């Protein structure tokens, strides 16, 4: 098992290294002077000189690359060209909000997607199946930000059932320990704060979770259908095992393997989907920060965040692969 994890970990290294090279070249290929691009609005003659010194923009390309790699390895990714906030600190402080939103979207997608996909497969061809498959098609063709606006318009503005934006009502005087607001409320036993944070997650979670929900439903349905046709299921049934045992031990366990992989892939994609959702619901996470960085072309932030997101994406997929190895021992060997 450890060898499997190590081998899988080694595969991540070349991808991240390649990405570092690409990002390095990207900043140098930007239109105009790279130091000016990195400084953005804060560019002054003295500042440009300092950045040139820091990154060695006057040095040969290889030396510059060495400097960049050293900075990346020591965790220094520069500062925002607009606010001057260090990129790493801005990421760390906003990451919890995005993780919370991503988890909300995942809970919605997986919690609803697996049962729906399973039921649809068990009753393939029924009206429930048709509705599920049709709904899952609709789920992927609506632009995320449009869906977010619609949800906000209907449930927050017209019906007034849910809050329109933010992570927590400003009137609630909540103590923040971890910056995961729901968790904070539970830890400090401020139940109203936890509940309020949770309520604020409903609409953004729905908006962000719709595409993964559609995909989880389809994968689950396809996978269950395939397993239902397998010989070992027939064998189990003819052995006289109870239907519920066959369903749980034989069908679900085997059918969920591809679903786990899909969930991993979707988790990574959710991070970039959050750019759109967070900006609609004014959630102060990495998504809305990236949204601002994109509209201002804040290259230092973009460069750092792309690297971070790719790293998180790689780690999530690594975890999923390891999990997969735990569930299905055959994977470890191949």
């Amino acid at each position, binding site marked *: 098992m450890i060898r499997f994890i190590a081998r899988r970990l080694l595969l991540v290294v*070349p*991808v*991240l290294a*390649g*990405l570092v090279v*690409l990002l390095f070249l*990207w900043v140098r*290929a*930007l*239109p105009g002077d790279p130091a000016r691009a990195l400084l953005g609005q804060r560019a002054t003659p003295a500042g440009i000189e300092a950045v040139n010194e820091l990154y060695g923009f006057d040095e040969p390309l290889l030396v510059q690359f060495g400097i960049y790699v050293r900075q990346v390895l020591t965790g220094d990714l520069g500062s925002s060209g607009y606010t001057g906030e260090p990129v790493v600190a801005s990421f760390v402080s906003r990451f919890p909000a995005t993780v919370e939103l991503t988890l909300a979207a995942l809970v919605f997608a997986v919690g609803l997607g697996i049962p729906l996909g399973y039921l649809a*497969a068990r009753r*393939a*061809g029924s009206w429930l199946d048709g509705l599920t*498959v049709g709904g899952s*098609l*609709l789920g*992927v*063709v*609506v*632009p*995320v*930000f*449009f869906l977010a*606006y*619609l949800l906000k*318009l209907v449930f927050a*503005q017209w019906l007034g059932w849910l809050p329109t934006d933010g992570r927590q009502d400003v009137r609630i005087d909540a103590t923040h320990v971890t910056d995961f607001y729901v968790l904070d409320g539970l830890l400090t036993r401020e139940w109203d704060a936890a509940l309020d944070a949770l309520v604020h997650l409903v609409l953004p979670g729905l908006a962000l979770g719709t*595409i993964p929900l*559609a*995909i989880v439903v*389809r*994968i689950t*349905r*396809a996978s269950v*259908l*395939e397993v*239902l*046709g397998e010989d070992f299921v027939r064998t189990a049934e003819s052995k006289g095992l109870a239907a519920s045992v066959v369903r749980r031990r034989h069908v679900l366990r085997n059918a969920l393997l591809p679903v786990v992989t*899909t969930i991993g892939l979707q988790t*990574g*994609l959710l*991070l*970039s*989907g959050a*750019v*759109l959702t967070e900006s609609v619901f004014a959630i102060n996470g990495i998504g809305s920060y*990236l*949204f601002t960085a*994109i*509209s201002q*072309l804040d*290259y230092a932030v*973009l460069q750092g*965040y*792309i690297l971070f*997101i*790719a790293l998180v*994406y*790689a780690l999530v997929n690594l975890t999923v692969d390891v999990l997969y190895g735990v569930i299905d021992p055959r994977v470890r060997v191949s």
Partner: protein
Amino acid sequence: MTAVLPPPAAAGAPSAPGPVDEPGVSLVRGAWRRLRRDPTAIVGAVLVAAFLLVALAAPLLAGYEPGRALPGNGVTPSSVPGPSPEHPLGLDASGVDLLTQLVYGARQSLVIGVVSTSLGLAAGMALGVLAGAFGGWVDVAVMRVVDIMLSIPSLLLAVSIAALLGQSPISVMLAIAAAQVPIFARLLRGSMLAQRGSDYVLAASSLGLRHRTVVMSHVLPNSLGPVIVQATLVLGTAIIEVAALSYLGLGDGNPATAEWGRLLVRAQARLQSDPHLALLPGACIAVTALGFTLLGESLREALDPKGRR
């Protein structure tokens, strides 16, 4: 952001056995036969045909010039003129006939969708053929590049390209194409690898055909099916992605272009007073994407040899 659809439900859903083909019916013929009887395919084809028709006949359907505000249009910060005999859907937030904008928006989506998908397809196929034809270290190197491209979420990939090239229609197309390259490359490589072990490839090689001929005239044509199907699906997502880029302020930089995503973005401020300004372009995007998705899905199902049981 790009929603890459997973493979559809195993075609042979237990309760719905596919039509039985007589022996000797070719795959394409059989697929065509199945398609004609598949309501999903018909709905998809009708939607796509309607979209193409609107896009091509835009000047005939529109009645006005896109992107040009009508003088004395009566657009105020709180309201826009509603439907009237001259303007069946009223005006949009910038004072242009909404129907005209929507109709020309179809044209814009078609152009961007087709060009970017063709670019993505061409580059992805080039990489896929390289990896699939040579194998060995070429395969490893190419697939590592593809892995790196896949490790950047497509939205951020699009953003970095738009930042490099500045705002123009070309950078929008390249940005969308770049996100598609790894999808096509992986698919074609996988499909070619699956063909390489086939008997007919072995036969061709043992006849003494050159490697190049075997790859180009035998393996490649037989591997294209899934790629073409994927292209149909990707066309649908490309149309959604254009809208997302517009929302991020990375559109083509010309405010006069009639583009569904931009109409949607401009309508956000008036969502309370005039929701139709957002709902109509939103529906156009969704319906068009749905058409391509339905068509692509049923194509995939029809071409799947498993469906011939």
